[in-house]
């Protein structure tokens, strides 16, 4: 009888059923779509972060240089420099400079050991990020003198600015950049070579390569410079045998140009026992924050970033989508859900009021309050269930539409923030490298500030080698938004609809149970 009466009432009062069900359906559909989109955006952010920081990295540790620190860009040329020769009025110069990127400071690798012992840390790997700037070509003798003056001025501050060198325009030389990264052979499961990058030829590093002059080269760099597996790439004057080429799986992801075994990179850069980036994997997602806090305590001067910190550094349409989903989407869902609940409750109470005669009669023929509450509650739950199922359908259609629309989101990593600085620097020079100085020099004289004597952040450093580098400081990764559907989300939608029905039933049933049969019948007289 209960279900028969429920069926009859839902059909007999179709308008109320439809309105309540549609209200709940919209709320459920919106929640499904927003939750799925939110999950999609999170995945997209994770992809972007994975592409930049490596898959599986929960925490990154870097050390930003302090204001006033940094040695500035040093080139050694002139006759005494091995790579320089002089003839008459011109001087042929050639110099490689390999050092940590501006704005970044090396950390002693004892810190890595300390981090690995920190509670909540499951795995640690470290890299040494370096930038090689090569200066080669011919300059006039006077120009070379000017060049020295410029360098001294920037170091000593005796010259007010680059305007003093605006007349410098002679010579024929190039400045090229190469990003080099020392990685721990055999530890690529974590860090920059995890997940996002794949070998497109040759092999990866093995532990046997720890002290070998071998290199992995990004395919882009190799293609540009016509390098192949088996060939060599020169870093700081040392030929490194190319054992593998790296490509990326995610559009827009940038690699360092050359990867060397960490020990080899440290020796070449004169930074033995030092690293720039530490990648940490936490024992579980719930232990990320506590592990980060413990690392901050252990290394108070270091910059410790978690994935969520890093995610906040993502800009572009991905960031906009994330904000949209988090703010508008979430609040809209909550708003619609509350509205649907209120609507369901009000309609149910209104329905009970309209059915005063019915409930009064049922009480008069012996129906108990409990039976009447069950009746009203069951009707409301069915309305909720209908709303949930319809909402599920609408929500799934919305998700299908999102997925079939192939919405492309661009995630940009800003170079600000110490955690992002080093990684951005990798991209800065990888993308911006080769911005030659061949033309008139005055306009870019400030570029020698790339050594960052002012201790500016990496973005400033990126600008140090020219506008192209600054542009490249914001590396963009394109990802297609895929809104996944999980059973938990479907169950959540149905549960919310049922909850709406339950709430409406509770209020409606409470209202019905308060009707005294005599009063209910008398009110109709």
């Amino acid at each position, binding site marked *: *009888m209960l279900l*028969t009466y429920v069926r009859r009432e839902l059909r007999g009062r179709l308008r109320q059923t439809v309105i309540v069900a549609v209200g709940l359906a919209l709320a459920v559909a919106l929640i499904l779509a927003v939750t799925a989109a939110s999950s999609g955006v999170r995945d997209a952010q994770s992809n972007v972060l994975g592409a930049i920081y490596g898959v599986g990295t929960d925490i990154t540790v870097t050390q930003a240089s302090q204001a006033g620190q940094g040695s500035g860009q040093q080139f050694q040329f002139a006759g005494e420099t091995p790579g320089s020769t002089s003839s008459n009025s011109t001087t042929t110069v050639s110099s490689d400079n390999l050092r940590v990127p501006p704005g970044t400071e090396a950390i002693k690798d004892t810190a890595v050991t300390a981090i690995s012992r920190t509670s909540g840390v499951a795995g640690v790997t470290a890299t040494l990020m370096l930038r090689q700037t090569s200066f080669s070509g011919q300059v006039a003798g006077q120009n070379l003198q000017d060049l020295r003056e410029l360098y001294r001025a920037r170091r000593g501050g005796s010259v007010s600015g680059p305007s003093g060198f605006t007349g410098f325009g002679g010579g024929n030389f190039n400045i090229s950049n190469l990003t080099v990264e020392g990685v721990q052979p055999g530890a690529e499961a974590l860090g920059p070579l995890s997940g996002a990058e794949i070998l497109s030829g040759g092999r990866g590093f093995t532990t046997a390569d720890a002290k070998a002059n071998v290199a992995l080269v990004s395919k882009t760099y190799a293609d540009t410079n016509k390098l192949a597996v088996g060939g060599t790439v020169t870093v700081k004057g040392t030929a490194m045998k190319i054992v593998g080429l790296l490509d990326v799986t995610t559009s827009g992801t940038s690699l360092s140009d050359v990867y060397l075994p960490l020990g080899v990179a440290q020796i070449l850069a004169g930074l033995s026992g030092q690293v720039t980036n530490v990648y940490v994997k936490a024992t579980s997602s719930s232990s990320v924050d506590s592990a980060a806090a413990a690392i901050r305590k252990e290394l108070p001067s270091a910059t410790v970033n978690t994935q969520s910190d890093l995610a906040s550094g993502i800009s572009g349409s991905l960031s906009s989508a994330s904000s949209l989903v988090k703010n508008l989407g979430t609040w809209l869902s909550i708003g619609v859900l509350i509205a649907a609940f209120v609507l369901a409750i009000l309609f149910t109470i209104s329905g009970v009021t309209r059915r005063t005669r019915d409930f009064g009669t049922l009480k008069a023929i012996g129906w*108990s309050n409990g039976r009447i509450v069950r009746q009203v509650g069951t009707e409301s739950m069915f309305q909720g269930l209908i709303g949930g199922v319809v909402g599920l359908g609408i929500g799934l259609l919305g998700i299908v539409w999102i997925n079939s629309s192939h919405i492309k989101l661009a995630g940009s990593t800003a170079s600000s923030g110490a955690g992002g600085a080093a990684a951005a620097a990798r991209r800065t020079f990888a993308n911006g490298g080769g911005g030659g100085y061949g033309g008139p020099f005055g306009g870019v004289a400030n570029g020698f500030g790339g050594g960052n004597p002012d201790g500016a952040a990496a973005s400033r450093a990126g600008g140090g080698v020219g506008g192209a580098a600054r542009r490249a400081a914001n590396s963009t990764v394109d990802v297609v938004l895929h809104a996944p559907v999980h059973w938990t989300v479907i169950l959540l939608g149905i549960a919310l609809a049922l909850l709406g029905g339950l709430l409406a039933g509770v209020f409606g049933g409470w209202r019905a149970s308060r009707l005294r049969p005599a009063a209910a019948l008398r009110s109709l007289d």
Partner: protein
Amino acid sequence: MYKLTGVIKTYANGKKRVDALQGVDLTIEDGQLVAIQGPTGGGKSTLLQMLGALDRPTAGEVLLGEENLAKASAAKLTKLRASEIGIVFQGFNLISTLTAQENVEAALVPLAVGKAERRARAAAALASVGLGDRLGHRPAELSGGQQQRVAIARALVKNPKVLLADEPTGNLDEETRDEIVALLEGLWRDQGLTLVVVTHDSHVAGRAERRIQLTRGKLRDAGPGKNAAIRRPAEVKPTDELATWAKPVEATAGTRAATPTTPA
């Protein structure tokens, strides 16, 4: 048997106090057909609500058998309404979304009667009031007289001891009124029910064994009605066979033949 002693019922209407019943003393024997008459606002429906365990008096006692309805718990009153008291309303009060059969079944739901038996008893009850061919009809598809027949079937399907009818013919035309009165009269005669009818209609009240006048909450016995001399035949016992309700009862010595029910 009903025994009312000093029953007072007072309603508060804003600041105004309405004394609906003012010390009513009344005894209704089992099997009596009592008509309660009186002007509008005289307290008739209030008295019926006391009898029907739908409300409690402000003061006094309402005994149904041994049970004092004034003091019984809400659950006990619900149980009494479910099993022992049948009520017929002026406005029929059928559930508009349910069919005639389902409306009648609704009265058996609190008694935990199984579905099959419920359906069978509801169908039999409807057949007994001449609506055997209207089981699947909704109230809106039935005439006023038919709806009241459904309401009567709903009140009687549980075999109550008492049938209370509040203006059962108030919304009906004269011809239908006579049919319904005849039906109630026949059921009272056959089933051994205690039948209490609240009515404005002197024609209806005149068919009762006993007439009671209720004016301004005070009771006055108005004397015997047309059926005062009628006694049900001793050999006709109340029965569960609802189908027999519709059958005319043979006249015996000292009795008048019951009016057979007329299908609508």
